[in-house]
């Protein structure tokens, strides 16, 4: 059994699909490789496949991760990468393959570049001490302060607006969908685009 960690991007047309669609696309791409893949045991076997963290609809990424297990141990990670490049759609292309370093559950935070079309300037955008947003969930509407979940925040001017470099909580323990930051600042959906750029553990090390 060979554990494989795949690093891939999500951009272009694949921005418009949900995480479930991404999952489905990855499963099919893996099946296209012809490799013997590890399945779970039990009544309803499915591929042993774990994603580091789902990415929301409309969000892009240059650093996404999924782990799977190969039954064939006689293949190198370089060979696997070359094979995946043949079977993955262009907009979700893997760029690296290696043995997993940290466990996926070590994920604690992520970095994002948020490009906003706006008349506001860098000097006008600052993080306050409290940022309350309304979160809609199945159990109803909740008011949440997202400020504690933001660990890093830098703003710079761009040609048609600003760029926000954000580090925020990410993972099963504590997670911020950074679209809420844009919502808090009053930016419209069509005026901003979010790119996730890195996934980190609690020590600030890139998940590798």
């Amino acid at each position: 059994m060979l554990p494989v960690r795949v690093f891939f991007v999500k951009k272009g047309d694949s921005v418009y699909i949900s995480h479930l669609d991404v999952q489905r696309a990855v499963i099919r791409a893996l099946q296209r490789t012809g490799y013997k893949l590890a399945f779970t045991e039990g009544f309803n076997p499915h591929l042993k496949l774990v994603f580091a963290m789902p990415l929301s609809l409309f969000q892009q990424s240059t650093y996404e991760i999924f782990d799977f297990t190969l039954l064939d141990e006689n293949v190198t990670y370089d060979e696997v990468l070359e094979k995946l490049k043949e079977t993955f759609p262009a907009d979700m292309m893997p760029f690296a393959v290696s043995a997993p370093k940290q466990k996926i559950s070590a994920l604690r935070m992520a970095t994002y570049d948020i490009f906003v079309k706006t008349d506001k300037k860098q000097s006008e955008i600052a993080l306050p001490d409290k940022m309350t947003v309304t979160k809609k969930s199945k159990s109803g509407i909740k008011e949440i302060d997202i400020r504690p979940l933001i660990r890093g925040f830098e703003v710079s001017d761009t040609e048609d607006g600003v760029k926000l470099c954000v580090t925020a909580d990410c993972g099963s323990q504590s997670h911020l969908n950074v679209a809420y930051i844009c919502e808090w600042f009053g930016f419209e959906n069509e005026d901003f685009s979010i790119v996730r750029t890195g996934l980190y553990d609690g020590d600030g090390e890139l998940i590798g």
Partner: protein
Amino acid sequence: MVRNEYLPLLKRVEKPGRYTGGEYGCLIKDKSKLDVRFCFCFPDTYEIGMSNLGIKILAHCMNSKDYIWCERCYAPWSDFEKELRENNLPLYALESGDPLNDFDIIGFTLQYELSYSNVVNMLDISGIPVFSAERGEDYPIIIGGGPCAYNPEPVADFFDVFSIGEGEEALVRFCELYRDCKKKGMKKSEILRLASHLDGFYVPSLYDVEYNADGTIKSFKPKFDDVPEKITKSIIKDLDKAPFPTQFPVPYLETVHDRVTVEVFRGCIRGCRFCQAGMVYRPYREKSPENVNKCAFESCKNSGYNEVSLSSLSISDYTQLDKLIDSMLEWSEEQKVSLSLPSMRIDAFYEELLKKVMSVRKSGLTFAPEAGTQRLRDVINKNITEEEILSACKKAYDTGRSQIKLYFMLGLPTETDADLSGIASLGQAVVDEFFSQKRNGRFLNITLSVASFVPKPFTPFQWQPQESLEEIERRQQFLKGEIKTKKITYNYHDARTGRIEAILAKGDRRQSKAIYAAVKAGQRLDGWDEFFSYDAWIKAFTDVGLDPDFYACRKIPFDEILPWDHIDCGVTKEFLVREAKKAENAHTTPDCRTACSACGANKLGGERKCCR
């Protein structure tokens, strides 16, 4: 490849992945090297269109030619349509992102009558004049095909040309003609005139229809001598030689059928009298098991799908089914690919299959008796007996299954209340069979699904009326009253959808005005409950001066000219008349393998495996 001006719209709609393309396996060609740009429009949503095998086959045939690029376009959902109209943006093809009007040829597959409003709407959103007479040289040629093209008259005024029958070779031939004519600088009308000389092509503008005072057709004649009086459909004589795609775009989104579909044979030997498909797809032609197996294997390998469906009208009639299953099992179980065999007869072979194929064990058990009494089953020539059904149910119960579906129709010709009671008692007999032995009845569920009969062109019942709405509803309620057990779930569809289907199915050219009026009044996506409006459609017909009952509720005399008489689907009218008369007396017709009934389809070619 979506143009930038559409990106803000995509953020405002549900499932934007419907409109972006970019799927693994989609084909991008170099525009500068092309002579023909073809856009294949499927008049329903992406999720439905991507499950359709026909468009995959035809796109593959055209894309195999270097000079043709066939791209895809699907009907927008109402939210995207609203955004397109508000922003004055046209529909576009998924691969290039180019608007529909940029294309040389736009093709629509006519899958079912209620999709006609989508055809008109898609043209309208794209700024293309909906009536062919209003389209000049600047607009693409609009071509139609598919099952409803056997009676294309209701939409004839919207189309420049129809490809009748199987399109693998025909569409390529049409593109070739188009390319050659364009090189010579010929006009659209000249191209269409030449197209009418090709086998299987129908150019509506080259025909005149005259009507009698009572609304029936007086005459249907070509305008010129070189235009054929009758158009004979195209067929592929040898299915093994026909191109079949093993590479195709694999959707990101979840679609209706997320699996590989491989055709096993075309046509049908059974001759059920209500079934249009069983008639118009004749003659019966099989694909070799080696070919089917190869297509299935390659398609799974290239797509990553883990389910294969073997498609045909009646899979049990495939002469080499055991050989095919065995060769598929050699690779499918190991690769965790499950097999789906819809339309199987439940017989001894099926039992063997259940033992061999793990995945088939998971599928539900379905029968389609279609009628509740043997008398009525004989009238419609559906050869299944109560004994067969009960014996198969017993076997299913013995292997632990307790979910059974039974399909019926109501409103069939010669039907009486006694036949409806027959449906209920058949359901009851299926339930009783379960309890005839000591079994745990907790999960027993028998579903009786009853649709309303719609008479279709090119069937022996094409001259029959559909029952009135009130009568259908009375019968639906009567049947409800006859069912005495909670173990039976009774499903029936709103008869109103069936009524509009019946009006359009037997329609003539005058209906195009009504279809246009319905679309203008807001109708589209009529195949979806949330959008279909019976009242809007009836109003559209009556507003343009047409009587809906004229189309759906008349018993038509055998000698009347039918709107589809100029189309030859293979099966002769004489055969259909013979069958209609036999039906009146509940006389059955054996299947083609037992005895040839001279339907006439074999004159078109095919392997004639069933004709002695």
